[in-house]
């Protein structure tokens, strides 16, 4: 695990940028409750209900008091951005983990056991491939209260059991027929042991890749659903963009460009981080892809 973190997140420049961005967003998300508890006045800086009565009129440009300015309702944009970082991190990580775990277990089980297990899982996977998760979530939004954990879980299940499971299955199939699997079976290895010890390492890179793709997909989907008002999430980056474009001209000082850019740039940075990390994972497992533009060389090339 230590090697893996070093190879993916520290020695690879792409991975380094990606993990730095993610760490920054984690710090942002963690700092919000701390700031709210000890530094910021709850009445003024609350992301949903705050209002600064000392300033009129209200959409204000960045100032010392409000580092990113305020929106048309007098709410602090910095506070909203930090709060939204928590939502996005939660959605991305939950969806990514759920999707990769489900895709790995379904893919491995259907490749290894074959027969009825495979027929059942692949039928499910075939059906889910035909249902793009964002469109299905638009409809499911009418059925359940769409808060972020629900959204992340549903996205993870729908995205993970679709195409990723099928791809991991076909990777795993090429391993299950190798001689060392037979050898392990004959020597008395249990199914679980063989799956974990002999087959999982081959498909784990694909699992990590799908985790990254699902994470950024889930964050974009959350933003898109919030933008069209199909969730019960009260504050996220998508909600911020929706609110800003709705009230873009409700301001005596002209359009509110200062409120439009922070959430959108945050989404771009967040998804880019996952993309760069996925590149780093790919390069870690496939050294022929590696390029070291800044003269950074890995210590061991085994």
């Amino acid at each position, binding site marked *: 695990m230590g090697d893996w973190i070093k190879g993916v997140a520290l020695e690879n420049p792409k991975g380094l940028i990606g993990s730095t961005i993610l760490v920054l967003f984690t710090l942002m998300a963690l700092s919000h409750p701390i700031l709210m508890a000890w530094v910021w006045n709850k009445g003024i800086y609350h992301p949903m209900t705050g209002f600064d009565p000392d300033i009129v009129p209200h959409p204000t440009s960045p100032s010392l008091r409000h580092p990113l300015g305020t929106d048309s309702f007098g709410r602090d944009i910095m506070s909203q951005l930090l709060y939204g970082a928590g939502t996005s991190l939660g959605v991305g990580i939950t969806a990514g983990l759920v999707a990769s775990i489900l895709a790995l277990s379904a893919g491995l089980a259907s490749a290894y056991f*074959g027969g009825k297990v495979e027929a059942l899982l692949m039928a499910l996977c*075939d059906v889910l491939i*035909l249902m793009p998760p964002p*469109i299905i979530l638009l409809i499911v939004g009418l059925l359940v209260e769409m808060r972020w954990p629900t959204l992340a879980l549903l996205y993870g299940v729908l995205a993970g059991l679709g195409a990723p499971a099928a791809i991991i299955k076909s990777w795993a199939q090429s391993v299950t027929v190798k001689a060392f699997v037979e050898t392990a079976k004959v020597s008395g290895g249990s199914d679980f042991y063989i799956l974990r010890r002999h087959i999982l390492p081959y498909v784990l890179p694909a699992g990590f890749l799908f985790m990254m793709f699902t994470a950024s997909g889930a964050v974009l989907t959350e933003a898109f659903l919030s933008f069209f008002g199909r969730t019960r999430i009260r504050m996220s980056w998508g909600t911020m963009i929706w609110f800003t474009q709705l009230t873009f001209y409700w301001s005596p000082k002209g359009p509110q460009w200062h409120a439009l850019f922070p959430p959108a740039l945050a989404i771009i940075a967040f998804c880019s981080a996952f993309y760069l990390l996925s590149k780093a994972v790919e390069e870690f497992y496939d050294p022929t892809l590696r390029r070291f533009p800044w003269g950074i060389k890995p210590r061991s090339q085994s």
Partner: protein
Amino acid sequence: MGRYLFHRLVRAFITLILFQTALFLLIHALPGDFVSTAVGLPPVWKKALRAYLGLNLPLWQQYFRWMSGFFTGNLGKSFLYPRYSVLELLLMALPKTLLLLVPATVSAWIFGVWVGKQMAWPPKHSFFNASVTALAVTSYSSFLPWVAFILVQIFAIRLKWFPAQNEVSLELWTDVPISSNTVMLWMLATFIAAIIGWWVVGKTAKKWGTATAFAARALFLTALVLAWFIRGWSRLAVDILWHLALPFTTLLATNFGEIMLLMRTSMTLLRKEDFVLLARAKGLDESRVRDYHLSRIAILPLLSRFILQFPLLLLGSFIVEKIFFWPGVGVLLFFAIDYQDVPLLMGILSLVGIVLLVSHVSLDLALAWLDPRLRRRMHGRLD
């Protein structure tokens, strides 16, 4: 191959039935129905309307009604637009979606593949390379409604160059005998003809030199444009193009990045292969190695990737339609969800599902045709 084809088609048919069942259950699990979205209707009317629309039947009867209708090509009548059947509504909306989706996708591919191969070959490390990568990653991960909003603010509101709504200017179309869908389909055909013709004409004329090829291509495109003027529809086509500009740009800007990055990675993977070394040893130009030896093979992995990414493309075009009120399938989808118009919703989702199913089946068949090993690998039996 015949055996494989048969198995794959049977599997596709079973998938289709399961998919329809899952959709039906999902949509009928929603709280409320179409009638309950009509606020302020007297209860007696509501009851009568439910009986008229068949919403009071037991679930299994509705299910068989839908399934038998689906497999006989009768998708029922829309609740929201009772004059039209769902099929008619879809056929009315489809040309608009296609006119948005196909040119944007094809342009994103041409642009992405072209830039991607320039960046990967000859191998280089440069500031330019890094900044194009940064641009592509930004394009890949940017939030579509935001891009659309900024484009509208700049080009529609500030500069007033392009409209931000609708697909035609109505005043121009009042005394025109043909529908906008016809013009759109012809425009789509022209676009496809232009792409294919560009390639075929250029290839044929290349024998007589690059200048001839260029002249032939220019002549071909001019002829296509002239055909529109002779037909007398150029005014209408220009009007549609004018409305198409912003949605098209939005879709292109958010889609080209990923293709470019994939193409570059794919080229990078092949750089060390022997056939590249051989081509260079023969003394070929770097550009010839790139265009004739590397990029042709590098495109293949992108095709299967394209099938996997297709739902996202479709969703992107639906969102763009919703934002620019481009009255295609996406706008219908949002209406159908808001009013719980069950037949229309089922119809649209079935259309999406069928398109995805056909693309996956044809990908599998193409791969099996190219690689005989795959034909024998069915249901886990490897030999």
